[in-house]
C-alpha cells in the first residue's frame, strides 16, 4: 500500500537524455542499464548538470533552470561526498533548515556514536547514511537518492527503507537502485530509462 497519493509530473531535457512521465506516487525509481543516464537525470534535477524542464509536485512547480541553491531539493549522491574538513554533525548541519533538528535522524540512522568523527574514518555505508541525513535536514520538496542501498549493511536496509518511506510522506523521492527487493518494499513507481 502506498502511504499517500502524490501527483508528480516530470519533464527533464538533458544534452544526452530526455525523460518525461506523470505518476501518482511519492517514491519514483529510475531503472535501466548502467550508463543509461539515471545519475545524470538526478544531477539535472539537482541543478548540477545543465538541464531544461519542469517538475510539478501536487500542483507546485519547480523550474529546472533555477540555480541549485534556489531549488528545494535534497541530493544524496552514491559516493556520499561528505565535506572532509567537517565532522559528521557539521556535515549534517551544513544545509539544515532552521525548523529541523538533526537529532531526529541520529537515532533512526544509528549515527549517535559518529557525530564527532571525521568522514575519512567512516565506512561507505556510514557515509551514505550521513549524506541521507544531511539531505533530509534541508527539508527538501524533492529528495534525490542515487543508489542509497549500495554500501549498506543488510541490517541497516530496513531502517533506511523506513526512513525513506517516512520522508516520502511530505515530499517526492526520486531514486536509482539496482535492488529490486528494496524498491518493492518501498512500493516505488518504476520508470525505465532506455539508452539515449
Amino acid at each position, binding site marked *: 500500500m502506498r502511504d499517500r497519493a502524490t501527483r508528480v509530473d516530470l519533464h527533464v531535457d538533458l544534452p544526452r537524455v530526455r525523460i518525461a512521465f506523470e505518476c501518482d506516487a511519492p517514491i519514483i525509481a529510475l531503472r535501466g542499464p548502467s550508463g543509461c543516464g539515471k545519475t545524470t537525470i538526478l544531477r539535472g534535477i539537482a541543478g548540477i548538470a545543465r538541464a531544461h524542464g519542469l517538475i510539478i509536485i501536487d500542483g507546485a512547480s519547480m523550474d529546472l533552470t533555477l540555480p*541549485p541553491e534556489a531549488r528545494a531539493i535534497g541530493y544524496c549522491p552514491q559516493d556520499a561526498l561528505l565535506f*572532509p*574538513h567537517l565532522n559528521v554533525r557539521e556535515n549534517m548541519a*551544513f544545509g539544515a533548515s532552521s525548523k529541523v533538528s538533526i537529532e531526529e535522524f541520529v537515532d533512526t540512522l544509528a549515527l549517535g556514536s559518529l557525530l564527532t568523527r571525521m568522514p575519512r574514518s567512516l565506512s561507505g555505508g556510514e557515509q551514505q547514511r550521513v549524506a541521507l541525513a544531511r539531505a533530509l535536514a534541508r527539508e527538501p520538496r524533492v529528495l534525490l537518492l542515487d543508489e542509497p542501498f549500495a554500501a549498506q549493511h543488510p541490517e541497516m536496509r530496513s531502517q533506511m527503507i523506513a526512513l525513506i518511506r517516512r520522508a516520502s510522506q511530505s515530499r517526492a523521492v526520486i531514486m536509482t537502485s539496482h535492488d529490486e527487493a528494496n524498491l518493492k518494499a518501498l512500493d516505488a513507481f518504476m520508470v525505465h530509462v532506455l539508452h539515449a
Partner: protein
Amino acid sequence: MGWLSELSEALLVSAGVASTALGLSAPFAIATGLALARLRGLQRAVAMGAVLVPMVLPPVVIGFGLLTALGRHGLFGGALDALGVQLAFSFAGAVAAASCVGFPLFALSAKSAFESVDPKLEEVARTLGASRWRVLRQVSLPLAFPALAGGATLFFARALGEFGATMIFAGDAPGRTRTLALATYAALQRPDGDADAVSFCVASLMLSMLAIALHLSLTRARHA
C-alpha cells in the same frame, strides 16, 4: 655599525618588507589563483601568460619597469605625487618590488590549490542551499588552505631574498630599504666586508631553509 646590529637591522627590514608584501598581495594572489583555476581556453592562456611574465623577467627589468611606471618621473608618478604617495626609493617601493616577484609563485600555488578541491563537493554544497560565495568561504577555501599556506611561504621566502628589483626601484637605504640581500651586497662592496657578508649569507640560508621546511610541512599536511 657592528655586523650584528647591521644584520638585525637588515633582518627587520626584510621581515617587514616580506610580511607587508604578503599581507597586501595575498587577497589578489588568491583571487588570481581562483580565476586561473576556473578560466578555460584563450582567457586562461592569456591570464596565465600575464601571471608568468614576472617569473621569467630578470628582476632588474621588473625594477626598471616599476621605476618607469611608478617613479617620480614615471607614467603614473605625477598622479601618485598628487596623492602624496611616493613609492620609489622608499619602504613602500621595496614592498612593491617584493610583491611583483613573489606574486606569480603565490598565484600559481593558489591555482593548484583550488584545482585540487573536488568540484563535486562544491556542487553538493550548492544543492544544500549554499550560494557561490558561501561555497567559496566554507568549502573551497578551507579545503585549499594547506596549499594556499604553502604558496604564502613560497611568496615570503622569495620576497625575503629579493634583490634586483628592490635595488633598482627602492634603492639601498640602511634601515628603510636595505634588506638582507642588499646588506650582503653592501658588505661585499667594502674592502673588509667579506666576513660580514658570510654572516649575512648564513642568516639568509637559515631563513630559506626555515621557509622550505614550513612549505613542506604545510604541503605534507595537505596530502595527509
